[in-house]
């Protein structure tokens, strides 16, 4: 099923563009690791503690040694930009997988096999939909949890909120529509157990819904992580939110706020969030999901 989704989404323009953006980001992340180990000296090009003593004052405009210039704290913008994609890719993958697994596991079995429990779970999911995940991240980032708020943790929190929230509501409604369909009754007549029906018939039909929804949720997760990182709520990881914060805050004191400091992280966020959203649109188009 996942292979089919991958193949069919690639056929649309949305899918092609989405995969291209994702590939660019992944290549950037790998390139950063390779460059830092081979060509770039760590003391100059480290995305957090790097500083180029040979040029002064910082920030400097794009040049041969610093292709995207340096930020007000003397760090190489290209190195920060490439390093910033890694946490977001981690977050997206963890969030997508967590949400997919939780929504498929709970969404397939509970409305089909444990219908009474479904009523309770739907109320719980409706409550989860009301919670604003960026605010939860803001709250978590104020305390001792700050150091533990890694991209994977944020992805897990976001995936759980999305998977058991909006995704569960949609999936359980779809499962309820399917419960009395003729092909399921036919399977029952020829002796298939409820578990077999859930796994063989229901699960494949709801996978595209879950994939499309979780890709959209992941997009909001990326934007929310950006907000949290802008406010310094995600600890000392190289990220684009912090790049924007540093460019504006320190830039106003040290040499002015420059576009070459602001544009790379802005485009980074645009590429990253649009890649998942475009693939999500592609899934919806290819599988006729009108959500």
């Amino acid at each position, binding site marked *: 099923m996942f292979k089919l989704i991958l193949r069919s989404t690639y056929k*649309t323009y*949305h899918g092609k563009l989405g995969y291209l953006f994702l590939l660019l980001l992944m290549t950037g992340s790998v390139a950063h690791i390779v460059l830092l180990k081979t060509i770039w000296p760590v003391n100059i090009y480290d995305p957090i503690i790097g500083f180029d003593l040979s040029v002064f004052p910082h920030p400097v405009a794009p040049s041969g040694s610093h292709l995207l210039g340096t930020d007000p704290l003397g760090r190489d913008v290209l190195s920060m930009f490439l390093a910033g994609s890694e946490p977001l890719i981690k977050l997206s993958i963890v969030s997508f997988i967590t949400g997919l697994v939780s929504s498929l596991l709970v969404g397939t079995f509970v409305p089909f096999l444990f219908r009474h429990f479904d009523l309770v779970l739907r109320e719980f999911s409706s409550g989860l939909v009301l919670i604003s995940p960026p*605010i939860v991240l803001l*709250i978590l980032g*104020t305390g001792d949890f700050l150091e533990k708020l890694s991209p994977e943790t944020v992805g897990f929190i976001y995936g759980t909120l999305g998977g058991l929230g909006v995704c569960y509501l949609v999936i359980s409604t779809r499962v309820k529509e399917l419960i009395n369909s003729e092909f399921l009754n036919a399977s029952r007549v020829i002796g298939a157990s409820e578990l077999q029906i859930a796994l063989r018939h229901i699960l494949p039909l709801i996978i595209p819904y879950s994939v499309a929804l979780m890709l959209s949720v992941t997009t909001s997760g990326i934007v929310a992580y950006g907000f949290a990182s802008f406010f310094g709520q995600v600890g000392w990881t190289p990220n684009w939110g912090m790049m924007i914060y540093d460019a504006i805050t320190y830039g106003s004191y040290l040499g002015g706020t420059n576009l070459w400091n602001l544009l790379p992280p*802005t485009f980074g966020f645009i590429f990253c969030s*649009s890649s998942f*959203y475009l693939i999500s649109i592609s899934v919806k188009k290819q599988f006729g999901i009108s959500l």
Partner: protein
Amino acid sequence: MFYGINILIPGDFLTPLRLMMSQEELDALRDTLGANDPLIQQYYRWIQSVFSGEITPGGFRQRSSKTVLDTVLPTLHVLLPSFVISIYLSRIPVLKTKVKRLGKEKIFSDVFGILLISLFPPIIYFLIGERLESLFRSLFNQFEITGTSSEILLFSELRIGFGYLLFAIACSYIIVSIFELLALIHIPKQKLLIAGLLLLIVFLFFDAKEVVTMLFYSKNAFITIGILTVLLIGEFILFNNIIVQNISKEDHIMTASAIGYSNQKIFKDHIIRNSFFPFATRIAINLPYTIASLVIVESTTGWGGMGSMLYRAIMSQDSNAAMAILFLLAILTATLRLGINFSQIVFNPQLRGTRNV
């Protein structure tokens, strides 16, 4: 649920006092004020106090209920005009598309929508803040208007607050009309009429000094509205693309097209009317994210609404104030959702039909 989120805030409303008191004194105070009581007991006490009109309970208060409630109107001052502007402006790309192309992929429009959503509020502030400020300054110089936005404190807050709300909505209708005229969509007679009526009410019921104060207040308000609008437009463009694409595949659109109705008529009589309810439902589902955007935007521009108050309350570990704001935001979300559901029952003939049966 919101009380549950509040528990996640590290420390409690007494934590900020740790710099002024010893740990023993703080523990004693915690016992006296019931901060160490079981959660269920604290929750019951909070519910009781909410019903008695006090939404920031807990003995020691950094921010009173009044301080928190005073942020409601400023929030509406930016939220409602942003909604008005973004709902209408987000329709422009669809209105400029030919009916037969509506069912096709809208990759540019989708990418543009995502681009607007992913733009960081501080970046938008950096791009438009200075320009809007200089525009207001030149307008004030042109019309020789003098005064400060702090003069708003001299007048009755509630009165001028409501007056300003009408003024801001009127301005947003004028902005929408200008954009619709520029995009050559149609002459927005109704919108201009509504704007004119609202401005007339403001000029009749408020004296000149109050109106000048509103103009000065507008400067900061419209920077916040501008940023929030950019984010909301992105979101609404994506909503519109999906909704309109689904509607355009329906039989009645094909029939209208075959009969030979003009693009304008098909949009006005079939597509826009049918898109209202799915659009409203999506807005209702997305309200928590809109509120999150409000927090970010307000704390970026320093606007004194619920968003920036919530941010400051969380940062200063003032859990009582945070609880009060989360409670107000829950009420705001529920009210907007109820309003949307109620309007669906009133205006949707299909739902009315079901009710009658």
